[in-house]
């Protein structure tokens, strides 16, 4: 049973069973969304919010892009600014954010963009790592991600990334919390339908770090994950936790080449 489960039976059991449900599919790359139905969270915004996101001035998230740009240029620790390496030529960061999370070859760990920025700080700038959700880290992450705006998120999955991918996929498909819901229940099976006043999106990460109207500020993807978990009354994981990093990797591949929208506005 463990190694061979038909999608139909899996769906049925998924609807009926308690926590610990296994993913419905064997195939490594198969996710719950059909490729021709992939759509960004942008599509679920009202026209006013969409135009707010599109307007370079109106989009409040650009306040963080501005700050991030300043930090990128300023000296940090005892070493030079980010821009001194990443300003020109091959080292420019345009498009870099589309590849994250990915394996850091030196350590073998899975890192996301926030993690990579901190590794750069500690390894190359003799600076202390920045705390998750701190204003400087949010600003830098948003700035670097904004350099990839409009570019397709990478679906590449190396062999050593696959184990993390599976962990993320399992997390996505596992029911949890008081409401006993998995990410899949809403974002694979019921996207487009109403949940109170909201239309359920597909739960993509392509706009993060994003300005969330509910937060009245900009926040990271892990903050969003924590809100999702809290929303179904499950124990939120910590920022930068292994589960969330793996989930972030799963979402990167699941997005199937959606263009990055950072910095986006989301509800």
């Amino acid at each position, binding site marked *: 049973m463990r190694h061979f489960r038909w999608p139909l039976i899996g769906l049925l059991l998924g609807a009926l069973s308690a926590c610990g449900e296994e993913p419905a599919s064997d195939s490594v790359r198969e996710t719950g969304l059909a490729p021709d139905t992939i759509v960004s969270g942008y599509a679920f915004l009202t026209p006013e919010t969409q135009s707010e996101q599109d307007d370079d001035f109106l989009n*409040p998230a650009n306040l963080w892009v*501005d700050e991030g740009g300043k930090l990128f240029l300023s000296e940090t620790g005892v070493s030079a600014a980010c821009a001194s390496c990443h300003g020109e030529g091959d080292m420019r960061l345009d498009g870099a954010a589309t590849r994250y999370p990915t394996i850091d070859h030196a350590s073998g760990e899975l890192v996301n963009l926030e993690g990579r920025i901190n590794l750069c700080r500690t390894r190359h700038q003799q600076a202390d790592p920045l705390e998750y959700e701190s204003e400087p880290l949010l600003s830098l992450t948003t700035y670097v991600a904004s350099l990839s705006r409009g570019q397709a998120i990478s679906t590449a999955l190396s062999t050593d990334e696959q184990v993390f991918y599976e962990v993320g996929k399992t997390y996505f498909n596992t029911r949890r919390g008081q409401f006993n819901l998995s990410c899949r229940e809403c974002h694979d099976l019921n996207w487009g339908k109403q949940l109170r006043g909201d239309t359920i999106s597909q739960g993509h990460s392509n706009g993060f770090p994003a300005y969330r109207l509910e937060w009245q*500020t900009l926040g990271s993807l892990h903050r969003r994950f924590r809100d999702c978990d809290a929303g179904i009354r499950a124990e939120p994981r910590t920022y930068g936790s292994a589960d969330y990093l793996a989930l972030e990797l799963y979402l990167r591949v699941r997005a199937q080449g959606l263009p990055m929208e950072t910095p986006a506005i989301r509800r």
Partner: protein
Amino acid sequence: MAAIRISALKTAKAGEIIELKALIRHKMETGFRRGSRGEAIPRDIITHFVCLYNGEAVFEADFFPSVAANPFLIFYTRATESGTLEFRWTDQHGTVSSQTANISVES
């Protein structure tokens, strides 16, 4: 000083009506929210905005807690003479944040 974004034309013809935009980073804490332990979070808002054109106020706004976080304004003024546009925000504690833009007006 809070992060600020302003937008103003650099050059304009005399008498032309120009659009001005101002965005400032601020939580605009209403004073009505409660923390995770039920404690009241005190009010902390920007209360006043003024746009000064060569020192003369051409547009003002009084903000109440109902103005959204990271307050944003689009307003207009007539380009009269070359000089400086100052965008100035004052919060409830009297702290001032401001940014200027130069404008060159051709007659």
